[in-house]
């Protein structure tokens, strides 16, 4: 599935005195390719995460569209967009994002808890255990997230994003606040995932990530450019 954004922009209205409009992402065209790890780099506040969220169907743009194949996802109603996101898009958010009352295994299978039959759950558990094994967190499946380290939580988030075998994975600063060993581990996982045919779009300011990318973009003050 080809993922393209055309003339995509986002403005925010700031609360307070003076200028109250802030353009986070200037009109942007971008395509994300299957089987490639696309890297978007830039300083904090340059608009990288905003662009990622718009591409992932999590933040409605001010203008432009995001096409998944022939579908403009922002023309879908919320129920349909949620379902589409669940089936086709995996997101690894920035920071520690977990449902604290669920175990690691349940967190990974979260989308099946939202929509899924008993048969789905059984298959999801099998695949989740496979992912956990691959990411080195197999022994943690019944732990609550509060018992995990930062690196383990990040690997859990990657597994959660991959559980439905999505067409595209969006990773927002997946290595921030990780040590070198975990950074390398996470980057390798994403690289291998892309090599397996999934489109991976990663936002980072980690310079070490450059060596893992197939396609590189940079962003500055809301404007994107290919590197």
């Amino acid at each position: 599935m080809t993922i393209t954004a055309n003339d995509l922009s986002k403005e925010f209205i700031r609360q307070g005195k003076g200028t109250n409009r802030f353009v986070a992402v200037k009109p942007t065209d971008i395509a994300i390719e299957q089987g490639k790890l696309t890297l978007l780099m830039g300083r904090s506040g340059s608009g990288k995460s905003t662009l990622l969220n718009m591409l992932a169907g999590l933040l409605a743009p001010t203008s432009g569209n995001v096409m998944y194949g022939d579908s403009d996802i922002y023309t879908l109603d919320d129920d349909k967009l949620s379902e589409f996101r669940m089936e086709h898009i995996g997101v690894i958010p920035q920071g520690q994002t977990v449902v604290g009352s669920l175990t690691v295994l349940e967190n990974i299978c979260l989308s099946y808890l939202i929509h899924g039959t008993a048969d789905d759950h059984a298959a999801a558990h099998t695949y989740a255990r496979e992912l956990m094994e691959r990411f080195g967190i197999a022994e943690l499946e019944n732990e609550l997230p509060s018992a995990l380290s930062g690196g383990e939580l990040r690997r859990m988030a990657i597994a959660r994003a991959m559980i439905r075998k999505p067409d595209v994975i969006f990773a927002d600063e997946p290595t921030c606040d990780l040590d070198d060993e975990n950074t390398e581990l996470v980057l390798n996982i994403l690289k291998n995932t892309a090599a397996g045919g999934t489109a991976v779009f990663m936002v980072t300011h980690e310079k070490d990530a450059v060596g893992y990318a197939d396609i590189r973009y940079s962003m500055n003050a809301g404007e994107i450019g290919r590197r």
Partner: protein
Amino acid sequence: MKLTGSLSFRNVKGRPARSLALMILTAIMAASIVAGTITVTSLKTGLGALEARLGADIMVVPASAASKKDLENIVLQGSMGYFYMDRSYYDKVAAREGIEKISAQLFLASASAVCCSGPLRVSGSAREAEFTVAAWIRKSAGGELGLLDVVVGNDLSVFVGDTITFYNVKCNVVAKLDKTGTDLDTAVYTNTDTIKKLIASSLELGMNDFKGIDPDKVVSCILIKVADDHPVDEVLNDLNLHVRRTKSFKTKDMISGVSDSLIGVSGIIGVLMCAVWVLGLVILFLAFTLSVNERKKEFAVLRIAGASRRKISRTVVSEALIITLTGGIAGIVAGLLIMLPFNGLIEESMGLPFLLPQAWVIAVLCAGAAVVSAAAGAVASAYSARRISRLDAGLILRGDN
């Protein structure tokens, strides 16, 4: 496993201190509904029973005994006044105009019975007393009170067909009165011949409980039902003017005082209930708002995983429902545990007729309290649910909200 129910349940369980505190709060709110409403309803039912059993329009007592407090106690609480007047007053009163029915009663101090003890009320016959007790006779063997026949109050643990023994004399229980919520529930009615027999037997046993009281010569009070074609006030004035050394009063005048007290007590209970609920709803609202606010990222994760706005909203509301319904049910049980076993104490402390409503009324009240408790959760969490479901996950993850 569906997310909404399961995740909400896990969230409630995963935050035990917060959940327990909110459940206790809801329990207090529900208990206030149950206890408050049962109290008000019991007072109303008690007043209703009081009105229903006021077969007599006018009561005549000796002038010397008629302090207002005594009279109120006799009418409202079914208490006995141990005062007596000559039986000739019965004939004097009966001779006045406008009197449809008349019955004399003799109050005797507590008589010892094998099964129980209770005050005795003596009526000439069942027919005479019929208009004063018929309204609340629950079970009756029928016919007139014969020698050694008695009618017993509802709290006495004997039933129609049983016998009850006073001073070695076995009496037959021929009727049992409905519950009145007053001292009448422990009273025993019988006729003059029976009481003479009991007094004689007590004297034979060397007990001087009733020495000097001759049921043929004295009465404690005279109860009158006024004829339809005569105004009660007119008959009352006539009796007060012409039957000397007695005091006549309208029984319904006493009820108006109870009605006023009931309105006052109901008002206070209503205000307290409102205060508890307003405060409780504010606390619930703040607690749910804060809780949802501190878990915004968690809800963003649900959105990422495919939960729609509607599903997020349902998750928040069902979490609130689990807490308030559980707390509500606990509160209902607590309310019943306070009201049912201790209603006698409550009655005594309030000094008003107090009659618990029927079981089905209490069941409906409990169901209502459960629904209202659940609704409190839904209302208090509605704002948070709406707010969190409307936020863009992307903005939450950026930390802008």
